[in-house]
């Protein structure tokens, strides 16, 4: 039994790790564009901002379980198959991108406008302001967002069992819940609770250290 749990836990880690990594990288780009083109941004552009914002909202409002299914052709085209732990990373990433993009945008736009004005007064270029003020000042807030993302991806990864993703959540559903194995259900839940708690504690520690 313990080896099954260990394997499932590794699958969860695999899915959460890669989907976090890819979505953070891919979500950062729209976040920057949203920040720059926002009404209070360095290059306000209503059309770009509203359009991108709409796309983000549309993807965010998709129920994950639906996204999981309709994305299957895309997943197959991307990695050659639509079933398995590796394949589950694709829908997880796709659903996480708009989520983290919005979180990063909010974090970046919380930067004190006074500080940005001060930088401008010293002759900073827009690029320097983006890098040295916006991003630099927002790192702790963005890190908090990543922690939030990791924790919700742990939850979403349970649903990835639908496409054979495996993982602790899937184990809890199939063995624990559907086969009435209460002990498995309890162990799986405990593992997830400990994992989420550990991630949150690490996040809090890093936030304190960085800010």
């Amino acid at each position, binding site marked *: 039994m313990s080896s099954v749990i260990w394997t499932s836990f590794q699958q969860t880690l695999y899915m959460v790790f890669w989907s976090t990594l890819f979505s953070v990288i891919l979500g950062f780009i729209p976040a920057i564009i949203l920040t720059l083109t926002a009404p209070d941004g360095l290059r306000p552009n209503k059309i770009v901002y509203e359009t991108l914002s709409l796309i983000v909202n549309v993807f965010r409002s998709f129920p994950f379980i639906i996204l999981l299914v309709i994305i299957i052709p895309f997943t197959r085209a991307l990695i050659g198959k639509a079933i398995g732990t590796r394949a589950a990373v694709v829908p997880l990433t796709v659903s996480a991108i708009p989520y983290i993009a919005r979180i990063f945008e909010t974090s970046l736009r919380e930067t004190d406008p006074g500080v940005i004005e001060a930088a401008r007064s*010293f002759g900073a270029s827009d690029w320097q302001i983006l890098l*040295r003020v916006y991003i630099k000042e927002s*790192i702790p807030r963005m890190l908090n967002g990543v922690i939030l993302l990791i924790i919700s991806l742990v939850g979403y990864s349970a649903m990835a069992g639908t496409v054979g993703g495996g993982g602790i959540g899937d184990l809890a559903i199939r063995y624990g819940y559907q086969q009435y194995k209460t002990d498995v259900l309890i162990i799986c839940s405990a593992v997830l609770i400990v994992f989420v708690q550990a991630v949150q504690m690490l996040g809090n520690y890093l936030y304190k250290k960085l800010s």
Partner: protein
Amino acid sequence: MIKLENVSKSFGDLEVLKDISLQINDHEIYGIIGQSGAGKSTLLRCINGLEDYQSGTISVDDVTVDLKDKKKLHLLQKEMGMIFQNFNLLERLDVYDNVALPMKFWGMKTKTPEAKKKIEGLIELVGLSDKIHARPRELSGGQKQRVAIARALVLDPKILLCDEATSALDPAITRGILDLLSKINKQMGITIIVVTHQMEVVKQICERVAFIKGGRVLQIGKPEELFIRPAKDIKAFLHEDSELLPSEGVNIQLFFTDESADEPVISQMARKLNIDFSISWAKLEDFRSNVYGSLVINVKEEDKDKVTAYLDSVKVLWEVLNG
């Protein structure tokens, strides 16, 4: 020298600066005073190109501030350091890195021995050597403003722009910051423009001041002139209404400048003219360690000519107020 000629600016339909002409000399501490919303901060932002203006010209050392000529503006901004009401320091950088930040914007190295010497020297100048690696959150308001001052000086500017720099500080801390600004002005010869709504600030350090209301310059002069003989609008700004004066007899306002302030004019007048009068209102204040004041006396109608003749003879400025 900073020269503003007929500068006007509007935000949409709202005209915030109306035909402003000013001239600020090198090495001067120049005040721009007025109520919130008078346009004084906007004026300051136009000088260093943070905001554009629609007509007129602004020039700094004969170079026109023009937002279309980015290259020229960029070089001009290096000549002007700026400090703000809310300090605007970067929370995640320590004092050293905050002061060094403008150098980074200009591609200068900030860890070389020369750079270190300069940055540490500025931090010493503002009296924060023991806080060099503290983060802004560990500092008090006054200390934060000191860091901001050091940061504003790191590119060796000729001009320091202060936007309500002491408005968030209590009076004792304000005095310390103003002393520091005076010291910087004297030691380094930096021209300082102070935008404020606090009369105290102008009184303590400004050599000249422009009073702004509704986007217009109402009066320019030495603070003592503005303060002792204020125009009507400035009187309202200073909360000096003449409503409290007695309605009977004649109210005469006397103005004391630095020489006459020490003379016992009033008691001598009472003795020499042998008349009675009452003192209705008075104020006596310090301007950069000179004393100036003003006094309103209430005399009987028949004594008016005697009193004014006497005041003329002792060379005290006076003015008959209504009533």
